[in-house]
Every structure is written in C-alpha cells, then in structure tokens.
C-alpha cells in the first residue's frame, strides 16, 4: 500500500511539474518546475531501490546542473518568451501527435510483466562502485577525459573575445 501511494503521489507531482514547465512563459519558472521534476524522480529512484542514483540525482541534477541553468537565466536577464506563428502551428499539430505517440507507447509498455516491491533490490554505493571500477573502468576513465574537454570547451566558448 505504502509503495503504491508513494508512487502515485510522486508520479502526479512529477507530471504536473513537467506540464507546468511547458505552460510557463518565463524561463525561471520553467527551471524551478524542472527542479521539482528532478526531486520527485529521485524519490521514485529510491522506491526502485536505486539509493546511489537517487543521491546523485539530487546532487548533480537538482544541485549542480540546475544552479548552472538558473545562473545563466539570471546572467542573461532572460525575459518572457514571445510566441511566433510557427510555434502556434507546432502547438496545434505537435501536441495531438505527441499525445497519440504516448498512448501507443503506454499501450505497449503496460503489457510488460513484473512488479516492484519496497526493499527487495538495493543498488547502494558499494555495489555500484564495485561494478563501476571493475567492469566499467575504461568507460569511467573516458568520461573523465570527456569532462575535461567539456570544461575547456565551456571556458573557450564563454570567454569574451578581445579585439
């Protein structure tokens, strides 16, 4: 009962915040609703026993990445977006098309088997770390190079050019 209630609460919060992200005109409101989506997703990860992923979700996504977003919005002094003609066309045709795709996906996915109960499969830091540093050691080291390149790219791109 506990699991079902928690799932329904956080799934509803998640979808409501995602729709709010679409409905808001000002980017800072969209960013704040994205933080709500990420927080409730972290709780859903906890329900699925993914403790380490839930903690990383809060720290990396809701912490680091969203701070970067909010910082950029404030730095660029972003105002409300104005709708153009093409975006109205996209709303008229795109939203029903996406709704049809979701209905088809939900029909296919809902036939899948398996149920989730609280606490019968735990992905803690110990198990993840063992897997990450043994089976996935090479990809892990490659991501460190990727992050280094991303840092240099961000510095080069955001630097003001002297003329």
């Amino acid at each position, binding site marked *: 009962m506990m699991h079902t209630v928690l799932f329904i609460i956080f799934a509803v919060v998640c979808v409501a915040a995602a729709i709010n992200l679409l409905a808001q005109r000002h980017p800072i409101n969209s960013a704040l609703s994205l933080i709500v989506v990420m927080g409730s997703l972290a709780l859903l990860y906890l329900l699925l026993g993914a403790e380490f992923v839930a903690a990383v979700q809060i720290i990396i996504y809701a912490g680091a990445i969203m701070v970067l977003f909010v910082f950029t919005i404030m730095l660029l002094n972003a105002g409300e977006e104005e709708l153009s003609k093409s975006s109205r066309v996209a709303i008229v045709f795109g939203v029903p098309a996406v709704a049809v795709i979701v209905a088809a996906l939900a029909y296919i996915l809902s036939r899948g088997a398996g149920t989730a109960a609280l606490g019968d499969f735990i992905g803690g830091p110990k198990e993840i770390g063992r897997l990450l540093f043994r089976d996935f050691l090479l990809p892990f080291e490659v991501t460190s190079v990727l992050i280094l390149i991303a840092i240099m790219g*961000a510095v080069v791109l955001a630097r003001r050019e002297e003329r």
Partner: protein
Amino acid sequence: MMNTVPISWYLVLSAVLFACGVTGFIIKRNIITIFMSIELMLNAVNLSFVAFAYQWKQLNGEVFVFFVMVVAAAEAAVGLAIIISVFRTRETLSVDKVDLLKL
C-alpha cells in the same frame, strides 16, 4: 498485492515525461527552455533505465544512469556556454531570431 507497483507504471510515467520533453522542445521558443526540455527527456530515459535495472535485478542499468548524468553535466556546461556566446553576438534568446549561420 497492493504492496507492489507494476514496473510498467514506471515505464509509462517515463514515456509521459519523455513526451513532455519532446513537446517542450517543439513548442518553446526560448533557447534556455528548449535546453531544459532536453534535460527532461534525459531524466525520463534515466527513469526507464532504473526501472529495467530493477526488473532484471542487474546494476548495469544504474551504472548507465551514472554515465548519462555525466554526459548531461558536460552537455549543460558546453550548451550554456554556447547560449551565452549566442546572446553576446545576437542580443536575443528567441530561436526564431537565430536563423543565420553567419552575421
């Protein structure tokens, strides 16, 4: 049986979130909000990774989520730097007004 939740509910929720991300990517005109829609899509995929990791009792899916997060962080850093440099040269954040490769 009320103590359990079908895995398919998680997958359907993931599909709904992904569709919200796609819709935002299509209908939004602010470049930062479009970027946030991409992050929403990545999060939706992460949820289905975790759900499948649970279904097969394999931790590989959760390690994949970790790698997706790393790529998302790198993408956010580079993408926001690109947005800042676009704003410097064009003084706008609307994607409709950024339609020339060269100024």
